[in-house]
């Protein structure tokens, strides 16, 4: 009865839920598309970014991936659009758009 967690999106039918909504496997939060709960969406303006990295640690959903000391594009599969990063950025390198993008 356990099904692929990545299929448990907002459109899942009752027939496709796991038995008792059990979740088989660990570290499954990463596979689960919680980004679809988002109301507003941030946009990363690369040209303005100084890579100060103040934004990444304040993100409650670890949705700002950092590689080799540099932040990358938003992980919109997990970003809830809270906008905390916008407030943290000193260089206006993040702006918010209304709606799910």
């Amino acid at each position: 009865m356990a099904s692929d967690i990545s299929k448990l999106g907002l459109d899942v039918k009752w027939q496709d839920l796991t038995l008792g909504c059990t979740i088989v496997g660990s570290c499954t939060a990463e596979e689960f598309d919680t980004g679809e709960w988002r109301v507003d969406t941030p946009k990363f303006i690369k040209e303005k970014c100084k890579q100060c990295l103040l934004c990444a640690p304040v993100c409650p959903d670890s949705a700002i991936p950092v590689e080799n000391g540099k932040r990358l594009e938003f992980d919109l599969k997990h970003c809830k659009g809270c906008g905390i990063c916008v407030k943290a950025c000193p260089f206006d390198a993040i702006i918010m758009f209304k709606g799910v993008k």
Partner: protein
Amino acid sequence: MAIRDRLSGNEAVANAMRQINPDVMAAYPITPSTEIPQYFTTFVSNGQVDTEFIPVESEHSAMSACIGSEAAGARTITATSSCGLALMWEVLNVAASDRLPICVALVNRALSGPININCDHSDAMGARNTGWIQVFSENNQEAYDNMVMAYRIAEHPSVMTPIMVCQDGFITSHAVENIELLEDKVVKDFVGEYEPEHYLLKDNESIAYGPYAVTNYVMEARRAQLEGLRNAKQVALDVAREFEQISGRSYGLFEEYRLEDADFAMVIIGSAAGTAKDTVDLLRDKGIKAGILKIRLFRPFPAEEIAEALKGVKYLAIMDRCEDFNGNCGPLGAEVRSALYNKNYFPKTINYCYGLGGRDVTVDSLTSVFDDLRKIEETGEVGDVYRYLSVRE
């Protein structure tokens, strides 16, 4: 070879549990079910079972321990009555929604208050909508047989829903009757091993039980849970057919007693059905076409089958051993009427509250119910549709 014995209902159920040899029992004593864990712990101490017994500090803890244990992959059992079941109420819902096929031996007793230790069905009826399968027993033999069949129904892959095996407090739990037990090996082979697909202690697999569901999932989760409960109806029939092959005793969703051509019928649950059958025999001797429908499977409620079985009945009495405090009728009264309405069968129907707190149910008192039905036939007037039987007024 069947073993002839004489046992109380509690002994019979404890012996069925011994033969099932569950992995875990978590239980807290409450009259009149106390004897079941009491007998069972003797089996544990004597090494007759491999069961881990968990003594707990309350029934809420008992059911919570059952949930943890069943989720871990262990076949788990408990027993309770009355306020013990009421204290489990919160977690009964969790056991059902987590789809954990736990078994409760419920010995029916009045809920407080006034505080009382004797039989009625207010405990089981209070938990009737928690998502559990509910099976009721008329006598000690049925309590034993239903317990032997319980896990086969609950653990069926299409069901995976907890089950409550009910018998009447003191009336069957403490009364000693002749009984036919199956051999240990026959029961063991019939029940089989519990092999869930996923469980907490499974090697090389992690699993989370009871996760939070946001608004978007709850309706789908409930609908999926309903399907499992509904599937128990067919599985209960299939298991009963197999059980008949090892025992010679046949069970359905309910029992029809002289109902085939009955004009006057009574729907009843539990030990009072035995008295009702005697009543019907006496009425039949007088040429009155009376019959009984005794509920075995109450949850899921076999509405269509019950309506079909009652379709020829002209005058119907529905007997509730419980005051539901909805101001209108008893729980069985509501369900049977709704089942008949949906099928366009409209016998003249009255609903009784009877036998509360161990109030005697006799051939005389049940005859008076059929007298009331015959009065409706004579006068054409149904009168009060919800009545109390044997109440002083």
